[in-house]
């Protein structure tokens, strides 16, 4: 059953085009999980997370140097190659130097009709939520202009409910990973989360609920892998998780945007929807960009303990400043908790894979011994 979700991801472009035809709707891409997708959903559009591909960024290489976020570069490369020609819109939040730059580059080099820059504040408390609420009003109005239709408060509440339901289902899924052995592997879990970022939320809710009802414990050798925690920046390369499994490890919990950070923390269904969205998206995502490292650490360490992990793999994309600056602190904290750490600076190249294999094998052997 999980195969279906994996397949959707592989065929995501065709699937999005099919959705457009069937629903006569617009597809709007996002570059970070701090964009309140509910608003896009409430506008009757399909929000999709933009993803890269594990291939040479031959087109992007003409416009971008090497020491830059490989994820953004790969996404842009796909856009230049035409994979995202069906995209009607793109929403780019104020998160880091590279993503911010994507706004200008998209306007400059791509033919996407609607490109919106979302002003996400650094201020997380009262003033910040207040400003972000007003920004979300502007965003909503902008989408209304683009779609030609009003987005009602009712529609927003409905979207919040649908998204909260998805969050709850994914939480249940993650709970199943706490068991020994976990009911879904690390790579399977990521496929399920990423497919949620791509599919219509109602469809994902339905299929995921079915899956959760039917899931059975499996006792294959892979599932016996050494229990690991994965802390990562943008890591959409599920093959990395499969590699860990091949080397005798098993990721049972994570702290990463293509994982728990996407869905942990529900939107408060009471109160004004835009305000509730502003609050959730500012305050409930434990991301280095939020500059609350203690909160992120506490969250991560609790997850590690709940999941009974033996070691931690940290994967930071090269040039990912928010994560790289917090790395020394994270490492120190983990070591003080007695958790061995294996660090990767990701580049998403082929040669890297073999190095990763030998390091992970050594790490697993070290933890087993």
């Amino acid at each position: 059953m999980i195969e279906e979700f994996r397949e959707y991801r592989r065929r995501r472009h065709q699937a999005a085009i099919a959705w457009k035809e069937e629903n006569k709707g617009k597809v709007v891409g996002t570059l970070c999980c701090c964009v309140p997708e509910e608003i896009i959903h409430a506008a009757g559009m399909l929000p999709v997370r933009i993803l890269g591909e594990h291939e040479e960024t031959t087109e992007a290489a003409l416009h971008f140097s090497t020491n830059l976020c490989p994820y953004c570069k790969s996404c842009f490369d796909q856009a230049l190659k035409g994979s995202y020609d069906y995209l009607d819109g793109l929403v780019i939040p104020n998160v880091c130097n590279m993503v911010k730059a994507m706004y200008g580059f998209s306007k400059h080099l791509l033919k996407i009709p609607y490109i919106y820059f979302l002003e996400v504040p650094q201020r997380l408390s009262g003033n910040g939520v207040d400003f972000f609420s007003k920004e979300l009003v502007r965003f909503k109005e902008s989408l209304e202009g683009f779609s030609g239709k009003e987005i009602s408060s009712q529609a927003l509440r409905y979207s919040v409910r649908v998204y909260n339901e998805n969050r709850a289902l994914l939480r249940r899924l993650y709970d199943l990973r706490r068991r020994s052995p976990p009911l879904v592997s690390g790579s399977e879990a990521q496929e399920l989360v990423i497919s949620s970022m791509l599919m219509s939320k109602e469809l994902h809710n339905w299929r995921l609920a079915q899956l959760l009802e039917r899931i059975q414990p499996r006792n294959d050798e892979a599932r016996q892998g050494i229990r690991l925690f994965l802390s990562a920046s943008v890591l959409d390369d599920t093959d990395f998780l499969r590699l860990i499994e091949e080397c005798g490890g098993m990721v049972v919990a994570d702290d990463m945007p293509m994982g728990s950070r996407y869905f942990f923390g529900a939107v408060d269904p009471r109160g004004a929807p835009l305000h509730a969205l502003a609050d959730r998206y500012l305050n409930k995502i434990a991301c280095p960009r939020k500059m609350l490292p203690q909160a992120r650490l506490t969250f991560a360490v609790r997850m590690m303990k709940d999941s009974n992990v033996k070691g931690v793999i940290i994967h930071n994309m090269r040039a990912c400043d928010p994560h790289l600056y917090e790395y020394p602190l994270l490492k120190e904290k983990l070591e003080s908790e007695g958790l061995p750490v294996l660090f990767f600076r990701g580049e998403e190249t082929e040669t890297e894979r073999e190095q990763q294999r030998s390091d992970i094998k050594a790490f697993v052997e070290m933890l087993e011994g």
Partner: protein
Amino acid sequence: MLVAGVDVGARNVSAVILQDGHIVASGILTLAGEGAVASREAITQALKKTAFAFADLRCVVATGCGASSVPFAHRQSAEVVCQARGTFWLLPSARTVLNLGAESSRAIRVGASGRVEAFAKNDRCAAGSGLFLETMSRVLEVPLAEMGDLSLKANGWEEVSSICAVFAESEVISHVHRGVPRERILAGVHKAVASRILETLGKVGIKSDVVATGGVAKNKAVVRELEGQIRLGITVPAEPQLVGALGAALAAQEQVARS
């Protein structure tokens, strides 16, 4: 009980034969051609110093970057684990192992029981490796084995500042053209190599006793530089290139003992 460990590195293959927990033979071959053939050859040649044959081996464990190319190995063991095991057997007070190889260096922290606590690798940068020293040997026309001793005779050093091995090479060439004495240049090269190595070491933390293994550990000047920079003494085993194979052989022994 006869077991063997074989370490298939980037440059050399080494083998260690253990009989009932004692080293009875060992050998190093320069890697030429396939790892499978070379590893068999390394073991066979080592066995010639004993009364035994290949068939007498109860268990063989392979390690090193080419470990997967050894078809007759009963299992593979990670380099860092073998380096730690081998070092700890030679020196139970060892707490940090610096394995300085041809293509990469790794730093390994070892616990009081001999288990690996943490490790870090530098495989990205050529400037801290044996291959870089080989290049310098060619450029400066000094045999590799003599570089350390010659460098220690120098009066001061000539700065080799570049992080990149390619740039460093052109820097060294420009020093040669300027007529700087080779010892001084070598001293600068060794300083730079030590700095690159220490960037990796810094990631696991240094704890005494520190042991250096691998081919580059035979270069006295590099070891002296490292000692100076970490302000701790470094022990180099008599045969630093055999430590990995020794660790693998110990793993083989353990495997037989357990079965």
